[in-house]
């Protein structure tokens, strides 16, 4: 079964109650490809810090991506309009920024 079929089936199973158009599926596939390719390419930027780190990060990313494959849909559900998710991610981001910048201080 090709990747397209896999994707289409996932999409249909998840949202089978309502109509799906070609546009939605093509948009989701585009999002999938953009996320995977750009993340992997962006990870290459770490080579300016350390090459071993780059290899490790890319391997981890590959495992993460392959283990949650229709990744754009999962992203989409997390990028929700609900206030709980928005505040949660805002505070999480604050925590990450402060701890990375302060304790990982360069």
């Amino acid at each position, binding site marked *: 079964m090709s990747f397209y079929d896999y994707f289409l089936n996932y999409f249909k199973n998840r*949202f089978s109650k*309502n*109509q*799906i158009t070609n546009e*939605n599926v093509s948009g989701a596939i585009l999002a999938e490809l953009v996320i995977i390719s750009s993340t992997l390419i962006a990870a290459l930027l770490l080579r300016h810090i350390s090459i071993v780190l780059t290899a490790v990060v890319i391997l981890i990313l590959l495992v993460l991506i392959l283990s949650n494959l229709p990744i754009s849909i999962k992203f*989409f*559900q997390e*990028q*929700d*309009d*609900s*206030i*709980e998710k928005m*505040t*949660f991610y805002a*505070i999480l981001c604050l925590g990450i920024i402060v701890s990375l910048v302060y304790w990982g201080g360069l």
Partner: protein
Amino acid sequence: MILLDTQLLTLFTAGALIVIGIFAAIYIDNIIKKIVGLSFIEEGVNLFIISLGYKSGGVIPILLPGMNIKWFANNSAYPLPQALVLTSIVIGASTLAVMLALSMVLYKKHGSLSASKILNHESDMGDEL
């Protein structure tokens, strides 16, 4: 006892207020209580600013008649943070007023003050696909 210092204690209070406010922003469901919690963040930051200008054993930064200017300059608290906080308090109060007005409108519309009931809308795709 170095911990029993006025400035350190108030800095700690400010930090605790900010943490309480952030906690409220995540965990409290009732909108009015959430708004109260958010105003604690604002007040904690104000307290933090004021405590920066504090000088142990100093005087208030108002030059009274008969004071020696040099002595005053060495012993007064730093007045710039105090001037800033005045503005900040007013901004906080107006933000709070707008949020309360919005929550009143939303109560009229939905009949509830629970954030998870009135502020959670699925995105278009999740709704209709």
